[in-house]
Every structure is written in C-alpha cells, then in structure tokens.
C-alpha cells in the first residue's frame, strides 16, 4: 500500500497543484465585481499594468510590422505578388503575432512586477497582516490586479497590431513605393472582421486571464524569503510564456 502511494504521489501532487490554481482562478473571477466596486484601486492597477507597458508594446509592434513587411516584400516580389502585402501583414498581426507577442512582452513587463510585488507582500507579512485585520487579501490585493490584467491585454494587443500596420505602411508605401490604394484594399479584402479580428481579440483576452492568473498565483504563494520572491518571479515568466504558446496552439486549432 505504501509503495502504491509512493507511486501515485507525483500524480496526486500534480492534481493538487492544478486544483489550487483552479481554486485561485475561480476565487479571482468571483471577486471581479467587487474590484469594479472600488474603481480607484482598479484604475491604479490599470496604470501599473497597462500604461507603463504602452511604450514597450508600441515600439515592439512598430518594429515587428517593419520587419514583417520587409520580409514579405522580398518574398512576394519573387512571384510578383507584392499587391497582397498589406493583407498578409495584417492577417499575421491580427491572428497570431499581435496577441502572442503582446502576451509574451506583457509576461515579461507586467507579469514579473505583479509576481514580485505580491511575493514581497507575502515575505514582509503584509498579506498575513491583512488577514489578521479581517481584510480579505484576495479581494483587496488580487482582484483589482486580475481585472486590470484582463482588460489591459486586449487593448495592448490592439495597439501592437495597429502599430504593426503603421510599420507595414511605412515599408510598403513610403520605402518600397507600393500603390497605397492596392495596399489598403488588399487589407480590406483579405481580413475578415469576425474570423480574424474578433478571434484575435478573444485570444488576447484569454492570454490576459492566463498571464495575470499565473503571475498573481506565483506571487501570492511565494515562499516568504528573498530567494522565494526571486523564484516566484522567474517561475511566473517561464510558466506564463509556456502557457501562452501552448494555449495559442490550442486556440488556433479550434478557431481556424
């Protein structure tokens, strides 16, 4: 019996870890309305999660658009099909690169700061102090950050894609001298509102949930030492990145 238990121990631990994360997710989701009831805290978190990532996302999007357009242009010019450059770049941005790269940058920029902030609150006993004062830390600390993360992600992804389109415009029309009419009309002809734009935004919403959840969970349950906080921060980036890429594959296979 003991042997059997030792055999299934890792499996049970895995199930326990999964269950704790699910419990964390459900608790955070249930507390989202209470976060909306305290708009000041929520706005403050939206600033720390969204506004501070703005420059990084905008510059990232611009350069991805520039590179994509340049690569597509050289590839397409071999077949004399440079007229579909606008449509191709926008499709790539809206469907995949916008949501995925934004989520990866978000995990590095905002996710780490969430994890280390919560980890430090845990290490300096601030979370324990709240519990002693009968303030629910899930409601007070986690919920506003969670909601801010969910809302910021689609907005950041949209900014990323829009900047990418601007980059493609700069390369295609200003540098390579494509006809602007052909460029924009190929975009409108290729890109479908529902299957491309809406699905991309659904993707980034789901990435927002996954990314904030993982970062907050790792921070909240960090070991209360300096080392523990560091580990929690690292784990939040690693797990978020893997979750984003795996989720992207799953979502893409369901959507298209």
């Amino acid at each position, binding site marked *: 019996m003991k042997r059997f238990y030792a055999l299934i121990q890792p499996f049970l631990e895995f199930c326990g870890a999964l269950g704790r994360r699910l419990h964390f997710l459900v608790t955070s989701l249930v507390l989202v309305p209470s976060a909306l009831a305290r708009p000041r805290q929520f706005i403050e978190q939206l*600033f720390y999660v969204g*506004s501070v990532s703005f420059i990084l996302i905008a510059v990232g999007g611009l350069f991805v658009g520039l590179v994509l357009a340049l690569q597509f242009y050289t590839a397409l010019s071999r077949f004399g099909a440079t007229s579909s450059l606008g449509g191709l770049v926008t499709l790539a941005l809206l469907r995949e690169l916008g949501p995925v790269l934004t989520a990866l940058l978000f995990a590095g920029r905002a996710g780490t700061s969430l994890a280390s902030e919560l980890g430090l609150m845990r290490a300096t006993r601030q979370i324990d102090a709240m519990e002693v004062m009968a303030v629910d830390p899930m409601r007070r600390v986690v919920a506003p950050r969670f909601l801010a993360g969910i809302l910021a992600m689609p*907005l950041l992804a*949209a900014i990323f894609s*829009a900047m990418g389109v601007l980059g493609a415009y700069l390369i295609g029309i200003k540098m390579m001298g494509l006809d602007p009419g052909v460029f924009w009309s190929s975009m*409108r002809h290729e890109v479908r*509102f529902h299957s491309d734009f809406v699905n991309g935004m659904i993707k980034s919403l789901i990435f927002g949930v996954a990314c904030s959840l993982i970062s907050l969970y790792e921070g909240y349950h960090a070991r209360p030492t300096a080392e523990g906080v560091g580990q929690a921060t690292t784990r939040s980036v690693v797990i978020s990145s893997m979750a984003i890429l795996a989720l992207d594959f799953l979502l893409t296979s369901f959507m298209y």
Partner: protein
Amino acid sequence: MRSIRTLEVTTGLFVLLGVAALFYLATQTTNYRSYGGRSYQVRAFFNNVGGLHVGAPVRMGGVTVGRVTRIHYSMTRYQAEVDLLISDHYDKIPADSTAAILTQGVLGEQYIGLSPGGAPTFLHKGSTIHFTQSAIILENLLGQLLTHGSHSGK
C-alpha cells in the same frame, strides 16, 4: 494629489489609445464596412457553385457591389441557392442581368460577376436572378477535353 492626477490621466490616455486602436483595426483594416450600410438581398440559383464561399465579393465590371451572404442547396429546385447582399448605391441593376461564378486569375478566389442586361425593370429586395452561369470545374473541362480528344483521334 498631483501624482494621483497624472496617474489617472495616463491611465485614461492608455485606455483611450487602446480603444482607438481597436476601433481602427475593426473598421479600417477588415471587411467590416462592406457588410454595413444599406443593402438589399437577391437570390440566384446555380447548377454548381464550385469553390464559392460565404463572404465572396459580387462584382460588376470589376467593381465590388456586394457580397455572398449564404449558400445552401435548394431541395425544391435541386440547385445551389446563393443569397447576394448588394449595396443600395447600386439599385438600378436590370432585372435580366446575368450572374456568373468567375475566378480571379488562374488560381485566385472565386467571385460572382454580374453583367447588366437590358430590361427596363430593376432588381429589388427578394428578386431572383434568372440567368446564371455555373462555376467552371477544371476537372470536368479536362475530362471533356480528353474524351473529345480520344473520339476525334479515331
């Protein structure tokens, strides 16, 4: 007090820019607008729609005037029924116009080409286009060519 105000303003600016980017992507880079506006629906029956799909453009003289909104098989006429949504700007299309399923380029997308007829009445909401030309299926064409070739060879 000052820092809180900057924080609020920056957050507001971020949300505003994000929503503006969403709006821009939705309306300017997708085909969203072509579904909007005032339009009317007409029907056309084809023996074979080939690779035509929902969302394909309807063109007159190369200009997009509408879109395909529905394709299904009519069990009363035993033909494929295609619903076309045509923009209200083009409300003077003669009732005896011809609809043909054409292909853009050699391997391009299929679309519906309308050629105007000469009737004094116009297509309106719910009317049917009677003169249609099905998609050209390359396999059938090749098959006909091959059988024809072998017959003439003998």
